[in-house]
């Protein structure tokens, strides 16, 4: 139904796509996978008129098409959820859902009541309970992704393209999303699905196309591939070589008998956190579990001083850290990798190099003058260590693929040589290879005595990576799992137990 033939696209010197053939059938769910920077998002943007291919053709419903703008693709019946959530933060949720096709009254005016009702229904049917008249920007990324999904569902499309829709979603929401996708496919809608959470692919997709370095290297039914072969295709290595890796890159548990290096107590954030406390020992990985909006991101932000707290204390190494000051937190050795890469992480116009060195500039300068040589050395080290894929460290970071941007940010924080590293969704949008690398890195860092707080929506990551898991609900700590009790099932139960609001657990 939607096809490309020999599509090539390059940006300056970067060949993002090289002669890619791709085809999507009616009613199929087609996975598109590949490493970071393999060209998935670029292919999607070519399909939907954001970019024009340098050469090659796009065919839709049998006819060759040339979309000049995303609007044209949409009008033709292709609806897309782009990778970086692309909604308007200052507008209400309802407006975001219906932008451009709002319900009208008899007088041609927008029927606000109907729009709000419609949005509430749609969002509600996805299991999200929010005030649809509130500003979208105030919601967490996960909720925003659900809103984007609601928007994509609200139109009758023949093709729905989802670029990493699950990256910020919790198991529950992922299940909802899958349900929606299957319903759509059942009605004959073709779906393109991109994800770095490979397990999801077998649960959902019919076929898969693997991209590597802008080339299509494999297309075939999902069931014919096992995980190892898929990864081997993605990385371009031998299956045998890949096979030894586990589900995650985590190896084992850490030494945890030392005194806590970070202790937070009674953190209060109006309407968000109610007396949250936690402590982490050097070398320990503390997991934070919880449902969407349960306050995990707030907790780490509050510890970092980036979210004003009304009361509560944070101590590092027995010393109280001045509250509500990022600079003091940093100086005390705390670092935070934020979940929202685009809004709170990268500085798009700056080079990769300057983005990495950002937090340690004063250290790399004497009398206010930067030592370019020392910056280069530092940057080179981390580019190699984290295997960041850049043409040149002076390339603007905005040109990197999502996963590589994430690595740049991790490098930024490692430069500060933290004693406590708060990681909010550190593997969000990172490919398998990189994900395993990041996970291994977390292990390694913990092994070197770093205290890590890990927020993740991926159950596996928490269970395998953490030494201990705190469960949050509605801004309070409602449980702790450690040792033998730390299994996927136990975690699920802990989450569900508090979320079911009186009902019999969940039907998962």
């Amino acid at each position, binding site marked *: 139904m939607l096809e490309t033939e020999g599509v090539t696209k390059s940006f300056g010197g970067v060949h993002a796509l090289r002669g890619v053939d791709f085809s999507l059938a009616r009613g199929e769910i087609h996975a598109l996978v590949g490493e970071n920077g393999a060209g998935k998002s670029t292919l999607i943007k070519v399909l939907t008129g954001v970019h024009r291919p340098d050469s090659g053709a796009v065919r839709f419903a049998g006819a060759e098409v040339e979309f000049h703008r*995303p*609007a044209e693709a949409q009008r033709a019946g292709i609806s897309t959820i782009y990778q970086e959530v*692309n909604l308007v933060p200052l507008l209400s949720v309802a407006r975001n859902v219906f932008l451009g096709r709002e319900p009208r009254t008899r007088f041609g005016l927008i029927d606000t009541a109907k729009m709000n009702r419609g949005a509430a229904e749609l969002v509600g049917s996805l299991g999200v*309970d929010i005030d649809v*008249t509130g500003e979208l920007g105030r919601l967490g990324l996960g909720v925003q992704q659900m809103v984007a999904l609601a928007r994509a569902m609200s139109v009758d499309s023949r093709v729905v393209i989802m670029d990493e829709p699950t990256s910020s979603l919790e198991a529950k929401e992922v299940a909802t999303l899958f349900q929606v996708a299957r319903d759509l496919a059942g009605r004959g809608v073709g779906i393109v699905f991109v994800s770095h959470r490979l397990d999801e692919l077998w649960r959902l997709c019919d076929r898969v196309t693997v991209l590597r370095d802008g080339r299509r290297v494999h297309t075939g039914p999902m069931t014919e591939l096992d995980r190892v072969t898929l990864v081997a295709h993605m990385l371009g290595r031998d299956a045998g070589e890949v096979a030894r890796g586990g589900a995650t890159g985590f190896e084992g548990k850490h030494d945890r008998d030392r005194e806590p290096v970070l202790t937070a107590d009674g953190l209060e954030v109006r309407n968000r956190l109610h007396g949250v406390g936690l402590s982490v020992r050097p070398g320990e990985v503390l997991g934070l579990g919880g449902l969407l*909006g349960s306050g995990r991101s707030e907790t780490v932000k509050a510890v970092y001083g980036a979210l004003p707290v009304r009361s509560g204390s944070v101590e590092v190494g027995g010393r109280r850290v001045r509250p509500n000051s990022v600079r003091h937190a940093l100086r005390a050795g705390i670092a935070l990798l934020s979940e929202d890469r685009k809004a709170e992480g990268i500085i798009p116009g700056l080079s990769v190099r300057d983005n990495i060195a950002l937090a340690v500039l004063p250290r790399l300068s004497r009398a206010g003058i930067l030592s370019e040589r020392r910056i280069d050395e530092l940057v080179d080290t981390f580019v190699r260590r984290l295997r960041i894929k850049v043409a040149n460290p002076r390339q603007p970071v905005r040109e990197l693929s999502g996963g590589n941007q994430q690595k740049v940010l991790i490098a930024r924080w490692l430069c500060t040589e933290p004693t406590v590293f708060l990681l909010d969704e550190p593997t969000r949008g990172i490919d398998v290879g990189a994900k395993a690398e990041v996970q291994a890195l977390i292990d390694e860092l913990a092994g070197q005595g770093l205290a890590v707080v890990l927020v993740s929506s991926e159950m596996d990551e928490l269970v395998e990576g953490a030494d201990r898991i705190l469960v949050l609900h509605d801004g309070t700590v409602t449980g702790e799992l450690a040792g033998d009790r730390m299994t996927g099932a136990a975690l699920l139960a802990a989450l569900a137990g508090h*979320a079911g609001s009186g009902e019999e657990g969940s039907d998962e």
Partner: protein
Amino acid sequence: MTTTVAAAPAGSGGTRARVARVAQRQGALVILVASVLAATLAFDSFGTAGNLENIALQASFLAVVALGMTFVIMSGGIDLSVGSVFALGGVLAAWGSRYGTLAALLVPLVVCGAIGLVQGLVIARGGLPPFIVTLAGLLFARGLLLLISDEGATTYKVPPGSAFRELAQGGLLGIGYPIWIVLVAFGIGGLLLRRSSYGSTVLAIGGQEDAADLMGLPVLRTKVIAYTTCGVLAGFGGLLMASYTSSGVTVLGVGMELEVISAVVLGGTLLTGGAGTVLGSLVGVLLLQVIRNVINQVGSLNSNWQAVISGTILLVVVTAQRWLAKVEGR
């Protein structure tokens, strides 16, 4: 099926957030009401019907221009040409009035609209920064004005008895037409912003232009319309002024763009776009006008002190506004 998303501490948070938002957006209104009350108590001649109508009438010219500017700013742009276009509109109206009222109305609207259209096309299609394009527009409109008035030497007069004079000098129910016009225009503007897809698109573009584009909204068209409307409204403001003063004064509108922008921003519109209200801009214009009036009430104040005081008041108002927003927001 159960709703398993941990809802944000909804209810209270939602309404609280909304209260905060209203306070922030309507901070200017709070300050306007306060200053009107204070001025009424302090000066006998302030609260008189005559004086208040004066304020409203004086504000109406600026308000018309501010309406167009509001949409442009909300779309994330800016229009520096409004002052010159305002003056040009006035001169064209006075010139046209000699050929009848219809000409007095149409000529300025068409020409000023065309200037806005060209600016909009260059900005939207060419992707040039609005600041520079409309700065050039400022020069262009002023140059055009000088060209049609012999380097400013000729001032066209609206012929005595022309119906065109009635437009700004007449009134209904004892209230000048310009005030009515402003009320209607802002009513329409408000509806357009809140209840039309054009308005949503403007806000979406201002909020996140690339997202608006990816959502398939007509970004180019909407921008072009915003600048064209702004040109038309600036020209219309000038036309009203020409009717009010019965002449096409060539020296008008210098620095007006900054006054209009500050009114719009005072009214709570974000200069970066994406948020704001039409009513806020009206409040902003009134606030500026009241400040000016109050300064005059003080009487024989040296003109330099007037500047110092009005600048200071502006700073105090925006500081107070920020403060309100912070207090309510936390």
